[in-house]
């Protein structure tokens, strides 16, 4: 489908992705593109395959067929760390993390290209490792300030509130300097005020030249912040367009309301 790829001009292009667990097709040929410099929202009823899609494109599970291209290069089959190194970083739905690590360590850990992660350089304490550590620490402090996590930066993550965990999830993704951020329900379970703040934060991140693909159930938030909406149902792309377009689409309404005609 070289023609379709050329037509999409996406930062990321997902084409005909298929993955089944036993007899159940979790992804059944899902196809869409993520345009650069925008917020694309991926919506769909529970079980539509959104999280599975995230797992597939981030290298955690291996689809049976299809392709995922990042800036035109195939990334299907790469390991999660290789995909992160290429500038696509995902977050997790249930603030999944490292219980015994502090907020600061979470942020530092997402820093890429740290030569001190080589054990010999770590043992010798090379200048390159120290310089990189300093630069990352400054970046981590800046991210923490931006996300209002400065006062809890040395706390272990288990001591954070639900909202702070959500913010940290975004913050550590940012630390990897991604071009494309895949955010899995970045505002789920937080109070409306914080959800609004998270929405503003995501707009600001995109304004800095990054691209976001997010899965979210908060329709008010999606309407407010997204440039483009992709609707998934039963492992396929059901519709795409502006929020208003997909809201008025009869097939989308059917999928959400259980197909009552």
């Amino acid at each position, binding site marked *: 489908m070289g023609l379709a790829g050329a037509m999409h001009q996406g930062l990321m292009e997902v084409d005909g992705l298929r993955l089944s667990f036993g007899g159940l097709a979790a992804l059944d040929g899902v196809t869409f593109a993520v345009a650069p410099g925008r917020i694309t929202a991926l919506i769909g009823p529970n079980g539509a395959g959104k999280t599975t899609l995230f797992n597939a494109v*981030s*290298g*955690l599970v291996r689809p049976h067929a299809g392709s995922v291209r990042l800036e035109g290069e195939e990334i299907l089959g790469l*390991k*999660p*760390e290789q995909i*992160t*190194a290429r500038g696509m*970083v*995902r977050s*997790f739905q249930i603030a*999944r*993390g*490292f*219980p*015994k*690590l*502090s907020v*600061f*360590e979470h942020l*530092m*850990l*997402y820093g*890429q290209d*740290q030569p*001190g*992660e*080589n*054990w010999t*350089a*770590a*043992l010798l*304490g090379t200048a390159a*490792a120290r310089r*990189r*550590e300093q630069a990352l*620490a400054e970046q*981590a*402090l800046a991210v*923490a300030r931006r996300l209002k996590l400065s006062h809890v*930066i*040395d706390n*272990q993550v288990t001591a954070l509130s639900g909202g702070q965990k959500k913010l940290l999830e975004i913050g*550590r993704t940012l630390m*990897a300097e991604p071009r494309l951020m895949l955010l899995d329900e970045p505002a789920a379970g937080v109070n409306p005020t914080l959800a609004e703040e998270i929405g503003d934060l995501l707009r600001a991140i995109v304004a800095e030249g990054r691209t976001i693909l997010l899965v979210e159930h908060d329709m008010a938030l999606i309407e407010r912040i997204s440039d483009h909406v992709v609707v998934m149902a039963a492992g396929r792309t059901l519709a795409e367009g502006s929020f208003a377009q997909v809201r008025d689409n009869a097939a989308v309404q059917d999928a959400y309301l259980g197909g009552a005609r």
Partner: protein
Amino acid sequence: MVSYVVFLLVVAGIYALLAQSLCLAWGVTGLVNLGLAGFFAIGAYASATLTKWGGAPVPVGLLAAMLAGAVAGFVVCVSTLRLRDDYLAIVTLGFAEAVRVVASNEIWLTGGTDGISGIPAGLPRDWGQGFHLAALGIVTAILGLVWFALRRLVASPWGRALRAVREDQIVAAVAGKRVTRLKAEAFAIAAAIAALAGALYGHYTSYIAPEIFQPLITIYVFLAVTAGGNGRPTGAAIGAYLLIAFLEATRFAAEILPGVSAVQAAALREASVGVVLILLLRLRPRGLFPERNQKAPA
């Protein structure tokens, strides 16, 4: 009495080295290595055979032991990549038993169940007390070096990545860490440290045999590391010294107890270790020296 204390300090230093090994593999990286005694044995045999029959100087034997330990650790780790937690524990336990069985049966190499005696120490044994003091100095200095290096490693970005692997491998991979490589490095380095401890043990006591490398050694080191703080090299080392001190102290305490037979006293000693560990973990759940988090610069 002095020679008894010196002997105990050497043995405790060797246990402390084993504790450094376990601190790295299990405490920091989360790899449950129940095969510690196996790596200990590999180091002891590697250095003993090379120095006694190969005529190599003791320092070369020590280096060869570390290399043998690292290779064995790498092989065990890579062959168990898909295993975690209980499963890795079972395989490593099996590995240690296999080492013991091989050592008992490959008589041409290991002397079989008779073991290897007359292992050179690199120091004249006829120095008497001086020999033991010199050995104490060497073992303690080596422990200090290993402790210093390990502390540096644990506090480094490499150590931070290992701790992330321990907590959640998948998130660590998404954070850009090469999980398999990190685990193999940590496990191999830890195995090299355990092997070094084994080599030192052989040179000091001059005699090794398969029956010495019992799983109980591994269990004792787990106790020491748990009590001291499993993610902190300092805690692991102090835990080992405390364990030896406690085990020896109970030996005297059991003799003083009236109306207790020797068999009962031995059982009481074992039980008291358990009681103390439970009490300690009630009071200090993360050990005497809990793992440190990297502080943000002010």
